[in-house]
């Protein structure tokens, strides 16, 4: 069942972290290959010719692209342990909906916090807080988005937790002050080895963004 598993990734990527978490949850041994996105490897370009992006999961030589698709693939192939998608179709649809919401909103809004200034930044901050509050509402009183158990939506969202520090520094606000339950959830997830080992250090992310801004010529 295992076969050969390779992950082409980039250490600060929240998307790559999702796949790392899923592989760790299922205790799958794999080869991690760090990509230099300014100098993409021939393998990356061959395995993801359409988007040329990481993460790329390569299983027995065949590529799977897009992080949420990778997580579902991992869940379906290694279906004998640590289920990530819930058992019930309606719950699955709900999890997929909110994971799609995270994809549509959090990355771009968070990016605006460090890429932009002034009104654009303020508007992004406001909308990001609204989106995080919606997600927090979805959590309710459950320990995880998956209910009692850590699941698909938890995997989809928790990687952003290591980017919160960067968002907060640039946006000059506290996500914990706005969404205490969400931060409590994130800290709970960090107690899991699969999450703790997969997320990058938040201060390293911040440094990375500082360097990236310089390299991109963003003030």
């Amino acid at each position, binding site marked *: 069942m295992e076969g050969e598993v390779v992950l082409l990734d980039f250490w600060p990527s929240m998307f790559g972290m999702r796949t790392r978490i899923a592989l760790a949850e299922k205790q799958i041994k794999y080869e991690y290959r760090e990509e230099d996105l300014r100098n993409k490897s021939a393998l990356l370009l061959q395995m993801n010719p359409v988007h040329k992006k990481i993460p790329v999961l390569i299983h027995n030589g065949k590529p799977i692209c897009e992080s949420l698709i990778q997580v579902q693939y991992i869940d379906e192939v290694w279906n004998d342990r640590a289920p990530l998608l819930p058992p019930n*179709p309606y719950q699955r649809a709900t999890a997929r909906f909110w994971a799609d919401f995270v994809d549509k909103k959090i990355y771009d809004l968070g990016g605006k916090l460090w890429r932009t200034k002034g009104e654009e930044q303020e508007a992004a901050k406001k909308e990001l807080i609204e989106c995080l509050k919606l997600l927090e509402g979805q959590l309710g009183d459950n320990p995880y988005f998956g209910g009692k158990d850590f699941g698909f939506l938890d995997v989809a969202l928790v990687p952003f937790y290591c980017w919160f520090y960067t968002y907060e520094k640039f946006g000059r606000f506290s996500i914990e002050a706005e969404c205490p339950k969400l931060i409590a959830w994130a800290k709970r997830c960090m107690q899991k080895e699969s999450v703790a080992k997969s997320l990058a250090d938040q201060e390293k992310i911040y440094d990375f963004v500082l360097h990236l801004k310089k390299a991109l010529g963003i003030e």
Partner: protein
Amino acid sequence: MGEEVKVFGFWSSPYTLRAVLALRLKGVPYEYVEENVLGNKSPLLLKYNPIHKKVPVLLHNGKPIVESLVILEYIDEIWKSKPILPKHPYDKAMARFWAKFFDDKCMPAVWKPFWCPEDEREKAVEEACQCLKTLETALNGKRFFGGEEIGLVDIAANFVGFFLRTMQEVTGLELLSAEKFPHLFKWTDEFVNHSVVKENLPPRDKQLEFNRVIIAKYEAGEIKA
């Protein structure tokens, strides 16, 4: 069986069409509720899709499912006859990949040349053709993206399958032609002539007229992309 299935949709929406085709393929009876997306959104739509406030909404035994690709997966899981997703996890992953590619890249790219300002058109056409070329490669000479039968990707790609050629007819702007993309062009014929698809497409004349209305609205700045 006492199952209540409702679809809130818009007759000319490619996203609504996705939900309709899946249900029709599987022979699932449902009630259709037309929403006027260009006018005021109904209280029911806002109730069932408070986050995005869009069609389609699938209501199954009173519970709403939204986002057309999520709806397709749900339909396939509940009604198991005539599966639209492949069985094997790898093939499933590929189908999901192409459906997402279609949504993220193709839809905006293929639509743009028809409404964008003159000075942006050349670049928009180039990007649209790049997407069509990728789709042609993905089709890989098969009859349908799903193989011998239509599947998730065919249903997802209905904008290219049906609507694109109606836009080309109204504007004279040709992105997809038999010369440039022979397999994809042939696929559009297979698609619109499929026994279930052809019964459920928007009426052609009505669609052509609506295209004119929509283009005029974009040109007048009344709607943004």
